[in-house]
């Protein structure tokens, strides 16, 4: 018998034309990923446009979002690399489609090339579209052209490397997906591999440069070397991908990697089998919960170990660099994948039916599934907490990254329940989380405009509600998931994440106005102020009127109460002495050098300035400087210089009492009063010996009636403002007073936000607060900038404080002088 060649009808099976093969392959691969590609692109574009819109709303100094929209565009190819590899290789392998595809007469080259083409095409188109939307987002605010962002060579390199890393993501993830059937596991292993490769490369390069090139050679300066190593590793990776693809295409989807031994090819539920093996030796059957818990622990165990390794590697990197972001990224990524791993293991091949068909209690199943990954996440958070502690600068830096892990984990869990494919649930989780992050970041920015004096973390108090919503929905879906063959819950998922994403922002902004404190000028109780017995000094004043940092003490008490008698003068002296020491200058030389200042004051004081704010700032500084010179001269017992400086100081203070300057120089005058109060008895005795003390001390503060008039004027303005009904009225009022400063409020008001009452109230209150401050300053000089008003929210309270403190300090100084004089008289012969 001979082995025959076959009859002519076999020619019927001749090859199809190459163009048809390509068309069909590309069609299939594109159809496999198009929903993810379009979904990712649309969500990214929406984020960019949202950032652009927000930037329009924000004040100029807060407009830092341009880069973010470009970064979003540059991140798209990486996301698409994950999505394409996951769907075209990992998902095909997991669903068994690979077996059919590879049984068709298609060469591995065509198949690999088709997938690569689809990835390159979708990434390129998506990148171009997103760069266009980035440009639109940038143009919304100011005419910034994208190419301008690439003029900086370092940022250009960053962008280029971001895109270059994408290639390696595609290569590494593809290789991992070809070797490992579980797509999620493949993703994590690829990430670990890439990270390890890059860390090893950096360390090796640093060592080589240190050893062979130059001991002073810096790693950053050898970018060409970096590029070379990157190219080499990419080429080697690409060769590896080609070999791995050819091997997998030929052996089919079930063949084990020779190194790893045989894997099950009959779809045995491995976790169950492993769980059974662990119980096989037990004398009694395990309880249902124990069995489920054991299954939950063993399900995706390899994936979870890989996640832990990945997170630890990233944290090590963060600690090496002493940078917070990699550490935060590590714990967030780990939480996300651990969340997705809760149900994804059982989603594959409908493994959950094993439990469903046995009628297990869904609550036990849920706990058994959630507990192991949640405990791992908690453990990682604990480790990350230690790592972050050494890097974080503030408590917020420390706690918020860890707290945010909870919603991340739960979103991942919900995704794994709703989407059967692990790679889809992972990608959707990434997209949803980034959208939530962007939405709430935007909300925080709006918050900072509307409520500049409150902590943005107020929005974060709504995050537990969002998290609870997602958790409740996930819990309610579990019994449905077990009951039905296919959980069709995409709509539920969409609305859940939509509500959860917007809830903190909407609630925070809606009810944020409740957190606005009562400003001192709002309903200021003038009668109570007039009844205060200020002469005693330390009496407690009405707290809501004049307090500082909730200490319960007056501002002046806070300052004066903690000063010992000589602290201020000592501080000044020590500062100057230190300065002199550095400059190898004697005190007499320094005093001599201050003659110019004194001469300028004696000849006319501060020069007139067009800008009232500049004038008052110069005047305040001169008042402080001349007082400092006077203090030092007094300390040196330089009688002439001391008299001269104190007189100059007195002259400046008298100059500052004109209506245009008396309020804004109040702090400097307060400084002088405090300085007088901290002079030692010997200093006072020395000054009195000049016989001109009355001419040296600051003049008496304005009368109480005069000050009361100022406060009344402000109170009446406030009452007028709160009667106004809309933001536009407030804005018009501002325009009337000539203090109109365009900023985000105007946009908010004109964009129809005032139709939403809570937000309108918030804007009105905030705006009127700002306006009140501006009007207060308007009384002193015409062209006050908005900056000053924003920075002095409790300006009225401060003024009241400063006024009373001056009176208090004057009285106290009078008493001390009297005591000194009495003592002098007693000791006189």
């Amino acid at each position, binding site marked *: 018998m001979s082995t025959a060649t*076959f009859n002519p009808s076999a020619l019927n099976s*001749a090859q199809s034309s190459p163009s048809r093969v390509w068309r*069909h392959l590309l069609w299939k691969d594109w159809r496999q990923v198009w929903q993810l590609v379009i979904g990712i692109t649309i969500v990214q574009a929406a984020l960019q446009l949202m950032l652009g819109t927000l930037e329009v709303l924000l004040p100029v100094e807060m407009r830092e979002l341009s880069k973010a929209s470009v970064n979003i565009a540059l991140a798209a190819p990486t996301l698409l690399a994950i999505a394409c590899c996951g769907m075209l290789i990992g998902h095909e392998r997991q669903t068994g*489609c690979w*077996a*059919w595809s590879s049984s068709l007469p298609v060469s591995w080259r065509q198949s690999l090339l088709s997938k690569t083409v689809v990835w390159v095409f979708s990434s390129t188109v998506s990148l171009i579209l997103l760069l266009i939307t980035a440009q639109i987002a940038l143009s919304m605010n100011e005419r910034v052209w994208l190419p301008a962002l690439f003029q900086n060579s370092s940022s250009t390199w960053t962008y280029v490397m971001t895109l270059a890393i994408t290639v390696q993501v595609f290569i590494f993830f593809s290789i991992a997906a070809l070797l490992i059937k579980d797509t999620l596991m493949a993703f994590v292993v690829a990430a670990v591999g890439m990270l390890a490769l890059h860390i090893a490369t950096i360390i090796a390069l640093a060592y080589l440069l240190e050893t062979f090139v130059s001991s002073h050679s810096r790693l950053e300066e050898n970018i060409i070397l970096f590029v070379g190593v990157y190219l080499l590793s990419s080429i080697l990776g690409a060769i590896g991908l080609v070999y791995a693809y050819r091997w997998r295409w*030929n052996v089919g989807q079930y063949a*084990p990697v020779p190194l790893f*031994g045989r894997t099950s090819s009959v779809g045995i539920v491995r976790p169950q089998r492993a769980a059974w093996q662990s119980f096989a030796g037990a004398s009694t059957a395990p309880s249902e919960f124990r069995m489920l818990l054991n299954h939950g622990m063993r399900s995706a165990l390899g994936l979870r170990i890989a996640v832990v390794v990945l997170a630890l590697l990233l944290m090590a990197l963060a600690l090496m660099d002493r940078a917070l972001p990699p550490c935060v990224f590590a714990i967030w990524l780990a939480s996300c994948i651990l969340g997705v791993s809760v149900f994804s293991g059982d989603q594959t091949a409908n493994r959950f039916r094993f439990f469903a068909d046995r009628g297990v209690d869904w609550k036990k199943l849920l706990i058994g599934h959630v507990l192991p990954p949640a405990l791992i996440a908690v453990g990682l958070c604990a480790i990350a907490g230690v790592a972050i502690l050494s890097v974080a600068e503030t408590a917020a830096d420390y706690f918020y990254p860890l707290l945010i892990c909870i919603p991340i984990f739960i979103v991942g869990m919900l995704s794994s329940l709703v989407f059967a494919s692990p790679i889809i649930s992972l990608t959707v989780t990434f997209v949803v989380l980034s959208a939530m992050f962007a939405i709430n970041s935007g909300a925080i920015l709006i918050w900072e405009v509307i409520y500049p004096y409150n902590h943005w973390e107020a929005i974060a108090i709504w995050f537990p509600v969002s998290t609870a919503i997602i958790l409740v929905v996930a819990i309610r879906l579990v019994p449905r998931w077990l009951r039905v063959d296919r959980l069709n819950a995409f709509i539920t998922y969409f609305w859940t994440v939509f509500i959860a994403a917007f809830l903190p922002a909407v609630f925070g902004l809606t009810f944020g106005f409740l957190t606005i404190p009562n400003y001192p000028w709002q309903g200021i109780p003038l009668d109570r102020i007039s009844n205060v017995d200020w002469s005693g000094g330390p009496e407690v004043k009405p707290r809501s009127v004049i307090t500082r940092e909730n200490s319960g003490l007056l501002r002046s008490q806070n300052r004066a109460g903690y000063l010992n008698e000589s602290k201020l003068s000592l501080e000044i002296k020590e500062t100057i002495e230190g300065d002199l020491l550095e400059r190898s200058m004697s005190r007499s030389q320094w005093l001599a050098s201050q003659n110019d200042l004194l001469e300028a004051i004696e000849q006319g004081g501060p020069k007139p300035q067009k800008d009232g704010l500049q004038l008052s700032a110069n005047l305040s500084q001169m008042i402080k400087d001349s007082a400092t010179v006077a203090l030092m001269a007094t300390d040196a017992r330089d009688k002439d210089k001391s008299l001269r400086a104190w007189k100059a100081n007195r002259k400046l203070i008298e100059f500052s009492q004109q209506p245009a300057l008396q309020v804004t120089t109040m702090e400097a005058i307060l400084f002088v009063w405090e300085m007088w109060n901290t002079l030692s008895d010997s200093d006072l005795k020395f000054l009195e010996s000049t016989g001109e003390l009355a001419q040296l001390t600051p003049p008496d503060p304005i009368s109480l009636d005069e000050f009361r008039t100022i406060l009344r004027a402000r109170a009446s303005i406030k009452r007028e403002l709160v009667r106004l009904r809309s933001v536009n009225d407030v804005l018009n009022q501002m325009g009337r007073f000539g203090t109109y400063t365009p900023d985000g409020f105007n946009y908010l008001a004109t964009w129809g936000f005032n139709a939403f009452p809570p937000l309108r109230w918030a804007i009105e209150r905030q705006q009127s607060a700002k306006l009140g401050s501006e009007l207060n300053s308007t009384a002193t000089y015409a062209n006050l900038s908005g900056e000053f008003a924003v920075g002095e929210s409790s300006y009225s309270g401060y003024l009241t404080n400063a006024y009373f403190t001056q009176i208090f300090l004057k009285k106290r100084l009078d008493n001390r002088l009297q005591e000194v004089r009495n003592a002098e008289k007693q000791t006189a012969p």
Partner: protein
Amino acid sequence: MSVAINVQHVCKKFGRRTVLDNVSFEVPSGCVFALLGENGAGKSTLIRGLLGFHQFSSGAVEVLGKSPAKEPMELRRLVGYVSDQPGLYEWMTVAEAGWYASGFYAAGFLERFSQLAIDFNLPLDGKVRDLSKGMRAKVALSLAMAFDPQLLVLDEPTSGLDPLVRRAFLESMVDRAAAGQTVFLSSHQIQEVERVADYVAILHAGKLQVVARLDDLKAEVTMINYSLRDPLLAAPIEFDSSEVLQRSQSGRSFQLLVRGFKPEMQELMLRDPNLFEFKAVRPNLEELYIGFTQPAGVADSSGSKPLKAVSDVA
């Protein structure tokens, strides 16, 4: 006569586990060849090796004159294959699946696929994800048969099909064989296979127990049932252990599956006064299958060996 598949001394090991152990057989063209075996016997491993999805650890294989290891793509153009778990793309409709596959074959594929889909009552605009298991099997079969392959390799093809469709499908396999095409199938539906198979091979724990023309196999093996009045007395014939494929006993009643049972032996047994209720019948394929695969200890299969090489039978 030409040979569609030629397998010689094939072994396959996964790690230290031997899945196929020295398997040899030949499949003539123009026949229906059934590969039988219990779960895990190595049927799918053998089939996938025949299509070049993996290389055997040792041995030589030739399919349609081509080496699966060296020319897998050429082979796949000639062979229609339906795996035990047809992995169709869930998002495709039936028509899209046909259109997609048509890109890799010569013209005419789509028309034949459409005809097969109509014959199988498949909804062309229905998504694969919405189809039942049986419907998916029909889609997979339609895709495999639409290019009229010279060799059709079917791994559990009738799993999920309803009886009527199964019968019609298997009968169509006979027609294919009559037209000179070869059908190589593995199945657990032994009764169905018995009706259509020309040749049968039984694989047990990686070893080929028998490969023969089905009719010859049936002619060569006899199932004997008898009871003994006095079980302490010896039976009139002591069969050579190599001839007994299976032996079972229930009280004083015995059942033997014997190879080469001759008429004179029957005469001898009938004359024995100690023996009553004697019956000798031709076994069906299921009985043969059990005889060749029943585990040691239950049945005496110590002498089971391949009866004849298929070439000898042919």
